[in-house]
């Protein structure tokens, strides 16, 4: 019950953070700024959508995490997927709306005889975040392995009961 409540609260927070908050901020931005951004080739609507989709995925994963058995393979997949989605959001943020630049984003603007290009190089941070992601996946795997070992160690006396006994029959 506690785990489920936590999963539901996490899901609600994620919905608020990635679905509702960007839209509230967008509605508060001055129209002039939005016009300038769109002139510089940045589609703010696509940026919001780009945050909403991983936000919904994280919400779903948080709900799943709250309802599945922690020792199950689904729980392991859910936890790893959740970290992968967070990594995608990091790529998205660093790439100023384009995650597949992998830290080397470019914005081109200007008009008339002048053209201005901004190139942001943050590949070092992406490499750093990838290292952290790797450590997290290893840690999750160890945690799940630890749980499995513990549960199998606890149930091992039952395993020694001879076959045909009532104790090992499934209910």
């Amino acid at each position: 019950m506690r785990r489920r409540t936590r999963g539901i609260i996490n899901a609600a927070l994620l919905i608020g953070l990635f679905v509702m908050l960007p839209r509230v901020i967008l509605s508060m931005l001055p129209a002039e700024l939005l016009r300038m951004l769109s002139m510089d080739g940045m589609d703010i609507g696509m940026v919001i959508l780009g945050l909403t989709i991983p936000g919904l995925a994280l919400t779903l994963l948080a709900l799943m995490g709250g309802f599945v058995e922690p020792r199950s393979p689904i729980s392991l997949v859910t936890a790893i997927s959740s970290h992968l989605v967070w990594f995608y959001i990091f790529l998205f943020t660093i790439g100023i709306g384009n995650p597949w630049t992998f830290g080397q984003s470019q914005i081109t603007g200007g008009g008339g005889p002048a053209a201005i290009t901004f190139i942001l190089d943050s590949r070092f941070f992406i490499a750093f975040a990838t290292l952290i992601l790797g450590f997290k996946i290893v840690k999750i795997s160890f945690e799940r392995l630890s749980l499995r070992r513990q549960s199998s160690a606890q149930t091992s006396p039952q395993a020694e009961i001879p076959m045909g006994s009532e104790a090992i029959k499934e209910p």
Partner: protein
Amino acid sequence: MLVEEVDPNILQETSTLTSSVKRPYGRPIRALHTTIIALEITLAILVILSAYTLFSSLSAIIQGGETGVFNVEQRDDPETGDWLMSFHGQPRNQGFLEITVVAKVKLLSLTNATIDSGEDTARIPPGGSGTFTVTLRVPKDLVEQGQGYMEFELHMRTLMDLVGFSVRIRIKGEG
């Protein structure tokens, strides 16, 4: 994402089980947990420091006025009639990390062939300022035609040149 926590479900699950059985892989899990937290805090600090250093220095350059990047001095070469254009800059570093500023100026023909180019680099410690000068020679016939491109590139890097950004401005001259 930035601060990793041990999954409470697992802690709860583990605490009920550890009453009778010692937790396997306890040490590697704790070591990984500590490492992840340390790395995440380091990453957050580096991102904040680098972003602050780069953007504060860029805004100082943009608002620099007389000490900004685009101070241009033009002289005539009396022998050839060419123009000698010097671009001076005195960028200031208002951040917390050392920055490297590279200024490049290119003169291009309408067919994108490089006529002349120059670059200069300045390494600026936190709170300090540096200078750079780039001089270009504009041939006399190009001066008379007045057609071509002038390309300015400003590269700013910090965190031992690991991160940075560049601004490239290309202006077309139409005689």
